[in-house]
């Protein structure tokens, strides 16, 4: 990493705030489901906090992202407001999507979250189109397509990377390799030792990074986003990480090696980066504790707001199917 791409204190603390928010929000989500306050499908991003936090520090509000069902971390890092998010998780009319999308389809154009898909691999072809719109307008926006390691085995990945390369689109493909595609281990499903190597097939730079390392992730994103903004085309980033929990909430993750999981959790990137910030003088213990308390309060407020909000009117069934409601 060069000094040029080394983030300053404000940026570093901003990245930590995103990470702390994602971690606290995940813990609260699981608690809220466990206690029966909310029923929803939940795909925990715990353990993957660094990737979107460090990437988003390189993005503007107007930059686009397309993400997937395991995407709460990507959305929060990009700036989806907690209240709108929680109201959507609760299926309320005050949610991002009036309660009509739910956790797997959060959309919030104001913060650049254009599509959240529940279909593995589908974030990428649509990200290309958003990037094409920026290329046509010359608006300097970049689109990030987030997806998991499992998605690099589906046809849409290959179609999308090929097209992005041929058209030199301002898009960055970010594979969050958490070693698991649903319940199946990486090696059992993926022919390539490294997903980053697949970029060579599409004549684009492919880089594997430690996605739990803030500085490395920030630098890789900085370079890839810079390349995209400069009109030099797409990049594939394979960010190595580990999913702390099962595929979906309630999955007992018996298929995961307990040793591997314990090792990953022992190396939890959130407290690790917290300690690093303090050690390197970027923040004091008290500052971070105050920030975390503030986050907790914001989440409390968001959940209360969500649960106090109204459900959508049944008439919403026929609205937003088309621009003009059918008679």
């Amino acid at each position, binding site marked *: 990493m060069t000094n040029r791409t080394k983030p300053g204190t404000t940026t570093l603390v901003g990245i930590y705030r995103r990470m702390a928010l994602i971690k606290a929000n995940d813990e609260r989500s699981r608690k809220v489901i466990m206690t029966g306050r909310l029923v929803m499908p939940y795909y925990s991003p715990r353990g993957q906090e660094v990737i979107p936090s460090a990437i988003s520090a390189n993005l503007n509000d107007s930059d*686009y992202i*397309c993400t997937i069902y395991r995407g709460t971390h990507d959305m929060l890092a990009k700036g989806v407001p907690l209240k709108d998010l929680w109201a959507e998780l609760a299926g309320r009319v005050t*949610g*991002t*999507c*009036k*309660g*009509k*999308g*739910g956790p797997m*389809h959060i*959309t*919030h*154009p104001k913060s650049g979250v*254009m*599509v959240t*898909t*529940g*279909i593995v691999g*589908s974030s*990428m*072809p*649509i*990200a*290309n*189109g*958003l*990037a*094409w*719109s*920026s290329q*046509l*307008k010359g608006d300097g926006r970049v*689109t990030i397509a987030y997806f998991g390691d499992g998605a690099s085995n589906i*046809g*849409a990945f290959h*179609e*999308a990377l*090929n*097209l992005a390369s*041929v*058209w030199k689109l301002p898009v960055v493909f970010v594979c969050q390799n958490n070693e698991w595609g649903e319940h199946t281990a990486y090696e059992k499903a993926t022919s390539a030792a490294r997903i980053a190597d697949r970029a060579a097939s599409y004549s684009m730079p492919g880089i594997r990074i430690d996605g739990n390392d803030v500085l490395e992730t920030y630098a890789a994103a900085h370079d890839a986003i810079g390349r995209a903004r400069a009109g030099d085309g797409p990049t594939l980033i394979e960010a190595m990480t580990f999913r702390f929990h099962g595929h979906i909430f309630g999955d007992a993750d018996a298929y995961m090696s307990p040793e591997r999981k314990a090792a990953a959790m022992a190396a939890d990137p959130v407290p690790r980066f917290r300690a690093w910030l303090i050690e390197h003088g970027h923040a004091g213990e008290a500052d971070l504790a105050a920030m975390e308390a503030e986050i907790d309060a914001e989440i409390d407020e968001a959940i209360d707001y969500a649960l106090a909000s109204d459900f959508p009117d049944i008439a919403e069934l026929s*609205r*937003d*199917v*088309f*621009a003009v409601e*059918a008679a």
Partner: protein
Amino acid sequence: MRNISILEGINRALVDAMEADESVLILGEDVADPEDGGVLGVTKGLSTRFGEHRVRSTPIAEQAIVGAAIGVSLGGYKPVAEIMLMNFTTVAMDMIVNHAAKLRFMSGGQTNVPIVIRTMTGSGFANGGQHSDYLEAWFAHTAGIKVVAPSNPSDAYGLLRSAIDDPDPVIFIENLPTYFAKGEAPESGHRVPIGKANIVREGNDVTIVAYARMVQEATAAVEALAARGVSAELIDLRSIAPWDREAVLASVQKTGRAIVVHEAVTPFGTGSEISAVIHENLFHALKAPVQRLGAAFCPVPFSRPLEAAFAPDAAAIEAAAASLLA
């Protein structure tokens, strides 16, 4: 007024739409002029006129094509994506059905997908089982998608202009064997509203509902029936989703008999839906059960005699009408 072909009608609609609105784009396999402006030349001249940044040839990658169309529409453009043949939509179904059709609803109306997917199909060209299917019912069965299928040059122009104007995704079905069929040229700027049928011929004894190439077969049948003293009313549906219930029900109210004809296979087809709606609304006005006439329930066959017998023709429509009146 000069006659033009359906193909020319489509080409003109694209030219006029791109001229009128800079946000209109075209993408698809071979669509730009260096690639011949499409395998049949439907988009010929467009990239030369508007530039390859607006008329973009793509890899043979239908998911990438429809995905790019969806994304660029979210970015404020109005793309017309060509999926060369309707059977090729099957490899892009995730993009069409899970994304194009649903993003407006799932986002609570924050985003919409104003794309047109032009696609050609039709039996009669010995293309066999994977290049000729009519799959309109699949899309009509999906909430969030509109489906149109013109039968003449003027409607092709007017429906395509309306489809491009439309803020929601529209599947625009072109019939391969009738691309070069001539008809009256439309006025520039002509629009055919989506959801509005055309009464091709008025009659009192039986209503024949058809679309796409079947309108031509039905026209011949109506003439043959007239020679036998039967007055048939022919409705060119033009739009399949939404379809013009009002026009169809008004006609069947008058005639008391109806036949729905399409080139798609009969079971679970649009004919079944239209027939059901007629029965639900006009049960007591019907003089006979509604007839569905569709293709044989098999993949489109190759061998000439098999292919010729596969889809309904004028004789079959005439016979069905005669049996309703017997």
